[in-house]
């Protein structure tokens, strides 16, 4: 005290003694909301999560993150109808992130690098899976990661299901299918092909299986009643597409008519075009807007020269011609006859009227609830009415896509694992969705979507080469970086920079931030400015 200057009684002190945190009525907290892409993904991928890794060029980490949910990134990058991109918030800013293109890049890169996933520690439990399509293989993969011994019985000559016998090669090259399936067999999953199960109960006893997953898909083509249709020139679309996997390609003649409006109809028409049909005509009873097929596929078919007759119904099939009647849509969008009849020439008629499930092998299984078209009812654990028998994919009520089937496989695997261990799998509580209005889009730079290369038209019409090409590494990186990281911190330092009270502690790369509650006054600037909407303000409890 004696040595202080005149009129000075206190030692110099720091403002740190003044804990301004006690002014606060609201408190910022870091949160992770559910990005809309993740919410929309039928396979349950953490898309924002793997894009975050891909943004840094950490491709293996990104790929492994996909593989936690989906064993087929290279396949999905090609054939998934990407509901994630429809949901993507960036679509409201400029264009949605091309998620499928980045996924495809990662999938292809993984095949090139030979990355592999290991099976889990053996549990001694045995699971039988019937059907080696996307759903069965996905379940096998996840069960194998959980350490269960998996055996697949497949009725067909090769595994892959619709991925091999439904989707044409120009959309999904078979070497990709083979590569992604061989990763699963390398984990120890044994696939028995040409092994049709006639009686499930006997198969279970013979193989000493602890649980079963049914995933046979929907392979029976639906038939319709058209007079005169029992001629050799009428084939079903699935059978036609399946024949493409054999040595002898089907003979279809010069003029081909495809009847139907779904994706299978489009696939059949484009395949017929590639086989050299001079005229491929797609006939559908409603108009283009009401087609169940995805619009980009219709567009690609039209580009390749597939002709169309919307609002037409086939009334009769004779030796070299068909009779069609023009239709008109009523108020509810149902086609109604007009009485206007036309005759068309046709060498082959391909019927694509949808598929049903062949459930004859289940006739002796007690407790199953099978509807008329073969669809099997399951509970919310994917279990059928028979204890320990689960089902998924096209044979249960759901949208019939590779992605939904793959998601079923994962879901069923979790519940089968829980069943085998005698507990119930509880879904983690779902997070709130990071909608567009959470974002502060000021901070994002405008950037157009990267475009994938297309095969030129002449080659598309004449060959089964893949139509859509992949992104190169540099473009895939930029595309990944278009992700807005909705609802999840991606370490842009904005909160750290703009806090007037230095009350945000930067923890370093990959560790995000912390709020220093001793000094945070609760002004809310960090939450207001956060580009990704990853900070919430909550009421301070006192």
């Amino acid at each position, binding site marked *: 005290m004696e040595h202080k200057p005149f009129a000075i009684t*206190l*030692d*110099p*002190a*720091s*403002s*740190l*003694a*003044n*804990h*301004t945190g006690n*002014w606060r009525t609201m408190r910022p907290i870091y949160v992770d909301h559910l990005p809309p892409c993740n919410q929309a993904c039928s396979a349950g991928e953490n898309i924002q999560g793997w894009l975050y890794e891909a*943004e*840094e060029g950490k491709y293996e980490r990104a790929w492994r993150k996909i593989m936690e949910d989906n064993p087929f990134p290279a396949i999905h990058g090609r054939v998934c109808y990407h509901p994630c991109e429809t949901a993507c918030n960036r679509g409201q800013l400029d264009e949605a992130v091309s998620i499928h293109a980045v996924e495809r890049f990662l999938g292809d890169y993984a095949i090139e690098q030979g990355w592999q996933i290991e099976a889990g520690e053996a549990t001694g439990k045995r699971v039988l899976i019937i059907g080696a399509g996307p759903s069965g293989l996905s379940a096998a993969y996840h069960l194998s990661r959980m350490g269960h011994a998996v055996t697949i019985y497949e009725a067909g000559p090769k595994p892959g299901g619709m991925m091999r016998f439904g989707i044409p090669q120009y959309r999904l090259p078979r070497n990709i299918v083979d590569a992604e399936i061989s990763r699963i067999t390398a984990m120890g999953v044994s696939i028995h092909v040409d092994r049709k199960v006639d009686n499930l109960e006997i198969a279970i006893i013979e193989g000493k299986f602890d649980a079963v997953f049914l995933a046979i898909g929907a392979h029976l083509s639906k038939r319709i009643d058209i007079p005169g249709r029992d001629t050799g020139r009428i084939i079903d679309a699935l059978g036609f597409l399946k024949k493409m996997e054999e040595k002898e390609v089907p003979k279809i003649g010069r003029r081909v008519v495809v009847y139907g409006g779904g994706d299978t109809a489009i696939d059949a028409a484009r395949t017929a075009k590639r086989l050299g049909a001079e005229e491929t005509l797609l006939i559908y009873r409603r108009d283009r807007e009401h087609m169940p097929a995805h619009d980009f596929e219709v567009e690609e078919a039209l580009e390749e020269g597939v002709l169309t007759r919307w609002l037409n119904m086939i009334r009769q099939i004779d030796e070299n011609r068909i009779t069609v009647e023009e239709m008109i849509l009523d108020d509810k969008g149902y086609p109604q006859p007009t009485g206007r009849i036309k005759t068309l020439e046709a060498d082959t008629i391909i019927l694509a009227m949808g598929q049903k499930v062949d459930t004859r092998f289940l006739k002796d299984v007690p407790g199953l609830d099978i509807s008329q078209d073969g669809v099997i009812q399951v509970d919310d654990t994917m279990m059928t009415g028979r204890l320990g028998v689960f089902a998924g994919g096209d044979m249960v009520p759901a949208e019939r896509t590779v992605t939904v089937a793959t998601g079923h496989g994962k879901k069923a695997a979790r519940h089968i694992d829980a069943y085998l261990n005698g507990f119930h799998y509880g879904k983690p509580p779902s997070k709130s969705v990071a909608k567009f209005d959470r974002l502060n889009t*000021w*901070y*994002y*730079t*405008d*950037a157009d979507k990267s475009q994938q290369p297309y095969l030129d038209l002449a080659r598309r019409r004449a060959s089964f080469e893949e139509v859509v090409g992949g992104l190169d590494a540099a473009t895939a990186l*930029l595309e990944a*970086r*278009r*992700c*807005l*990281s909705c609802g999840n911190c*991606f*370490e*842009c*330092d*904005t909160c*750290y*920079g*703009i*806090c*007037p*009270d*230095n*009350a945000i502690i*930067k923890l*370093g*790369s*990959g560790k995000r931030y912390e709020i*220093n509650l*001793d*000094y945070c*006054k*609760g*002004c*809310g*600037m960090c*939450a*207001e*400015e956060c*580009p990704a909407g990853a900070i919430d*303000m909550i009421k301070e409890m006192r």
Partner: protein
Amino acid sequence: MSYQRVKFYQTGTFTVGNRLLDEADRTVQARMDRTNSLNSGHRACQGCGEALGARYALDAVMRATRNQLVAVNATGCLEVFSSPYPESAWQIPWLHSLFGNAPAVASGVAAALRAKGKTDIRVVAQGGDGATVDIGFGCLSGMFERNDDVLYICYDNEAYMNTGVQRSGSTPARAWTNTTQAVGTEPGNILGVGKNLPRIAMAHGIPYVATASVADLHDLEAKVTKSMSIRGARYIHIHVPCPLGWKSDPAQTIKVARLAVESGLFPLIEAEWGVVTDRTCIRQQIPVEQYLALQGRFKHLFNPRDEPSLASIQAMADGNIHLYNLVPTKPAMES
């Protein structure tokens, strides 16, 4: 603007930092080792733009001078909230004398350092708009005229906030303050008054004059850093919203500042030797109403709508946009 913006697909162009950017392309504020010249525990209100602007500017100066800095502060909010006896929030050499004499004291500090041969130590003087455009203006003009080696930074919150929101020479047209009440036929501050200090500073022909905003950190840091590469009298005028005096939401301090820039009411420019050399273009132009509507001090313009006043304020923004070519018609400009 005097630097090339990093064009980054996700963020980084406008955010404080980005984990994917090179260190050199991030701001000083993104660094874990920033000075934090103004430390936690200061007593500024929630969401104070001035506290933020001061840390932005002085941290950038500290980095540019390798921590060789003396700061002189005028009286005002910044001084009061940072140094209640015996506490200090300053982590840099800092001195305060009077309301009106900060430029003169800074000139003296610079002269003393020169006399001692310590020319590597640089001097910054800082104050609010009251100390700068009104009370200390004579000393400031002298400091400019003598071309003393001082960077003077004005944190403009457009009124005397510390003493209870009284009008200053920088208060905008039609703004409510306690001395320009929103009553009568011409509510708020009257049209056609006040000073434009950046232009007055330019008229002195000093080496460097710039305006900056807490809404554009990259721009602000680039200007502060550039100013420290120059010797002689320099002036930077930083727009800092005051939630208390502007009656705005403390959470929206940056947003309010951003809309001032995007509307054209607060142009971001640079001038050397009295000549405008560059400006930061408006990215997404907005009508002034959007900026005014966020602030309670302009509430009387909207209930009922005061069309003539809104038109006059819009005309000011349009004048700035025209004068500085803030919305270039040619697409060649950087975004």
